[in-house]
């Protein structure tokens, strides 16, 4: 691949998608180069989760095309990991942290074969990476919100996922846990993985994401955070004025409710 033309990990063209009874997103054109991070912002119902669910092949386009890692979504599954919104997961299910991480090898090992010593070693290494090695034997439900997200990231590492999609990973986390999570996402990107996350936290964007996509039923703005996060764009995305200051290329939002 010639320099200056980065390979695209996500390529969306003229996408219209929705559910049986309603269209949620229209005419989306979007691309995410491999090894970069992208944030998707927008109001509730604006289409953030719908777009992610299209990328993992859970929803089929009504119109347009979606390519993930250069192929149709259904054929890219072994290379991507999806962390759904936290309430979609049954955290009270009685399994240990290590068992959750080991789920990362399930899709690529034969059904009858239990995870071997290699997989266990790799799982412990993945837990080490997300600073959860000491929690391996604890029930997943005993972990804090930030630790739970990190356990799922360890599972994605074990899966050797090239593309990691996170649906509102920071929601419900306190500030230190959010920063810890974002630092880990930065690490993933540095290793060459592609990270796409939906978020309500506009302040983390400039420091941690290469590009932003603003959705409200369609694309309102996209590009590097400092370009995309213009007051008029945010007004159009959230339907009201969002006070912000831009200083030294960093965008700070003063208050934000949704």
């Amino acid at each position: 691949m010639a320099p200056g033309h980065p390979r695209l990990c996500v390529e969306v063209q003229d996408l219209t998608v929705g559910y049986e009874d309603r269209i949620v997103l229209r005419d989306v054109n979007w691309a995410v180069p491999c090894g970069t991070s992208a944030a998707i912002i927008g109001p509730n119902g604006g289409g953030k989760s719908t777009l992610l669910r299209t990328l993992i092949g859970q929803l089929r386009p009504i119109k347009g095309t979606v390519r993930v890692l250069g192929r149709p979504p259904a054929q890219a599954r072994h290379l991507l990991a999806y962390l759904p919104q936290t309430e979609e997961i049954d955290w009270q299910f009685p399994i240990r942290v290590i068992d959750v991480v080991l789920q990362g090898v399930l899709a690529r090992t034969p059904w009858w074969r239990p995870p071997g010593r290699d997989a266990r070693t790799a799982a412990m290494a993945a837990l080490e990476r997300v600073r959860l090695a000491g929690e391996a034997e604890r029930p997943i439900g005993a972990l804090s919100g930030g630790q739970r997200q990190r356990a799922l990231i360890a599972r994605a590492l074990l899966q050797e996922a090239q593309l990691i999609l996170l649906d509102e990973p920071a929601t419900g986390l306190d500030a230190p846990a959010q920063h810890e999570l974002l630092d880990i996402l930065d690490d993933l990107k540095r290793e060459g993985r592609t990270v796409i996350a939906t978020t309500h936290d506009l302040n983390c964007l400039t420091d941690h994401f290469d590009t932003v996509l603003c959705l409200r039923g369609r694309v309102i703005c996209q590009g590097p955070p400092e370009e995309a996060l213009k007051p008029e764009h945010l007004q159009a995305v959230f339907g009201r004025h969002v006070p912000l200051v831009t200083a030294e290329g960093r965008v700070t939002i003063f208050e934000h409710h949704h």
Partner: protein
Amino acid sequence: MNTIIEFLAEPFQYGFMARAFLGVSLIAVLAGVVGSFVMLKGLAFIGDAIAHASFGGLVAAMLLGVPLHLGALIFALGTAAGLTLLGRKAGLRADTSLAILFTGAFALGVLGLATRPSFTGDLTALLVGSVLAIQPLDIAWILAAALITGAVMAVAFRHLVYISFDPSGAEAAGVPVAGLQWLLLSLVALTVVVSLQAVGVVLVVALMITPAATASLFVRRLEVLMALAVACGLAATWIGLYASFYLSTPPGATVVTVATLQFTAGLILRRLRRR
């Protein structure tokens, strides 16, 4: 000492009691394993509904003169498949699809029954169950179901855990979630159908849920929870059947009463331990 042995051995002088002990013990093992998933995923109502749906199959089998288990099994598996399909394709809430399917199948059973009033007695026995009338053929069915369930668990246990814990994440990673959900419901259907003759529609749900719920009071790991659920189920079965033999109480209801008492004792014990 001798009196204790006599006390314990006495029921086994009767063939029907020996078959009852064997049959219900096997059901307790099967129901403990399947029931752990059913209890954790809040599928208790589904077990009950599948049991009622299989009633339609029982009547159909009677009218057609084919083996009852077969009719019940086809209706139960059909309900399980219908649930999986309706949930995914029609976008209906799970309990809505369930209510439509099982009341429909149950109504078919009632309609079929009305054409042959003479069957009423037999069918009542199937709804309530008759532990003391378990036949070797029933035990063979239960054993087959237990072996099938064991084989499925040996192969797909970790997949079933994955889809129970995080269905969206599993689907995105390429795990066949819909197929596994259907498989789990089919195991529930199988458990219900082979247990019908012995313990009836209501009591089989109790044997799936109550021991698993008792176990869940004390353990936080699924493998251990299943083992403890099986142990509780077996204990309830044996205590219940001995009590029923010596006190002349209805055996199925006695077993379930013991299981319920176990759960109550578990609640109290846990509270005491926390102090």
